[in-house]
């Protein structure tokens, strides 16, 4: 057990089966502190399902997910968030009927109980924090715009900003640059590099150029199992990976 605690996130023998189909099959995955790990793989490899399992959206059939010495399997979603894990979904999941400011405010990590919400006051600290996060995700001029009016890329950033408000130790991003222009991609690379200084990030992405720029390590998933793992260059040259995914 002792060596496991070195990792921020330890996933072992993780399996989930949907009516007999094993979307994730005996997966082992270890993520270090301050590491930026990218998960790649063909469609249906189980990438999103792994994130769903970690954040509690999907219940595992077997296996263990230990985060900072704490077993996450069986915890409800909000407790996993409280433990320090934030999740961005594949399609940007922001609150379109709330302003950018309110979206970020909701994610402020205190007063999240019923009574806490009633007593919550918009203090100077809260406002400062919201403004600084908005700035870091390039939305400082959009604070009072409703989420629905943002561009696709801005929605992606806003969702990342919402996660930053929570100040998680592990950030999970499902296709963060999907639908972004090349310029927006560049900005996102900078953003991820910046926020990775203080926390670990787990990214799912198909854009290999983007992956090349950000990844410390890459994990290739195929049919719910790890096919290869290592630095991007090594993975790229791996024959098995070329056969199932990158070769096409």
């Amino acid at each position: 057990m002792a060596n496991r605690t070195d990792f921020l996130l330890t996933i072992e023998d993780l399996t989930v089966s949907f009516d007999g189909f094993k979307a994730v099959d005996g997966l082992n995955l270890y993520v270090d502190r301050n590491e930026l790990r990218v998960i790649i793989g063909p469609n249906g490899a189980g990438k999103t399902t792994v994130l769903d399992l970690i954040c509690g959206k999907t219940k595992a059939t077997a296996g263990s997910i230990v985060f900072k010495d704490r077993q996450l399997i069986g915890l409800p979603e909000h407790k996993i968030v409280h433990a320090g894990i934030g999740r961005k979904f594949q399609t940007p999941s922001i609150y379109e009927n709330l302003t950018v400011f309110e979206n970020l405010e909701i994610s402020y990590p205190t007063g999240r109980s019923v009574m806490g919400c009633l007593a919550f006051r918009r203090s100077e600290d809260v406002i400062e924090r919201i403004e600084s996060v908005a700035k870091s995700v390039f939305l400082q001029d959009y604070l009072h715009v409703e989420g629905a009016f943002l561009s696709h890329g801005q929605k992606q950033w806003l969702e990342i900003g919402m996660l930053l408000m929570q100040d998680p130790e592990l950030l999970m991003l499902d296709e963060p640059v999907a639908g972004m222009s090349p310029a927006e991609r560049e900005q996102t690379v900078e953003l991820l590099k910046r926020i990775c200084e203080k926390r670990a990030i787990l990214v799912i992405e198909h854009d290999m150029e983007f992956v090349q720029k950000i990844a410390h390590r890459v994990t290739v998933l195929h049919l719910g199992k790890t096919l290869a793992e290592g630095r991007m260059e090594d993975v790229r040259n791996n024959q098995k990976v070329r056969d199932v995914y990158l070769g096409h």
Partner: protein
Amino acid sequence: MKKVYQHLFGGNEGALGLVILAIILAVILPASLDIFRLNLVGKYISYAFVAVGLVLLWGNTGVLSLGQGIFFGLGGYCMAMFLKLEASDPISTKIQSTPGIPDFMDWNQLTHLPALWVPFKSFPFALFAIVALPALLAYILGTAMFKRRVGGVYFAVITQAVALIVSLGIDGNQGYTGGRNGITDLRTLLGWDIRTKSAQYTLYYVAVALLIGCILVGRIVLSTRMGRVLLAMKEREDRVRFSGYDVANFKVFVFCLAAAMSALGGAMFVLQVGFISPSLVGIVPSIEMVIFAAVGGKMSLLGAVYGTLVVNTGKSLFSETFPQLWLFLMGGLFIAVVMFFPNGLAGLWVVVRERLPGLKRRVIRTAVSAATQSAVIPAKLANSEGGE
């Protein structure tokens, strides 16, 4: 001070709306209606408590309950039990075989007051029970369903089933509840005759004051972070979980709050109308109350009150002339509102106001949320100067 003003009244706009409503209810209607009609309005106002609760629960939380009549009825029964016991003193019931118990118990061969009724001899207990019992029931139902993530249509159907069960339960236990006739012949409240004209005026004003109190409570809740969380939940319940909130607790809270408001309405109904019966608890009244809220505008606390008044006035007028037609008209009205005015009268008001020059909104918000929410949620409180 400014903050409190924003919080409670939603700034100038919200305060104005509230003042207009208060003037209509407390000045114009009493001055222009005779006591018979005013008493009818008082009855509608007691339904409006339910509609205000539904605005919080349905409009702002996205949870449709088709069983709010349960809570209205429970509040009413708690009040009626106290009044009935007061009306059943041994002297006025001396011709019964067991004097001192309510008449319907005597008719059902009960020879002593059931244990359930005994605490209702105390007025403070009855007042407490009016709010606490319905809230407790809502807590139990809400916890059982929301924790298991029962929602949407399933929740609506279950609440409807519970409404049916409760009304049948009251109906079937005549000795304990007065059965289908309900609890009737209520006379005095702590010795004060509630049937006199002056008492009816007083009770009318008490109902108006309590209703405005409920609207203010609703505004406070919606103006805090809770209001934003509820809106967020309505749109993306799953996402709110991943923002670190236990969604079920919030739904339970609002369900309890709406139940307590409905129960207050039930108690005011009993005081003003003088009876309660299972026909006010079951499915039909529960659905009617949803229609009141829908017509008024399910997002608007004030709209719900107008909706209740308009629909009920229509009901009185039409059912006096065309009794058969009313139900069809009501059904048609509901369909029309849902299809053409999903935000009810409040939404219609927004459309009218948008056309009036000089009243255009400056903040970027969709038209409907501008009227129904920004009045309620002073979201721009601290930052309105900076961002526009």
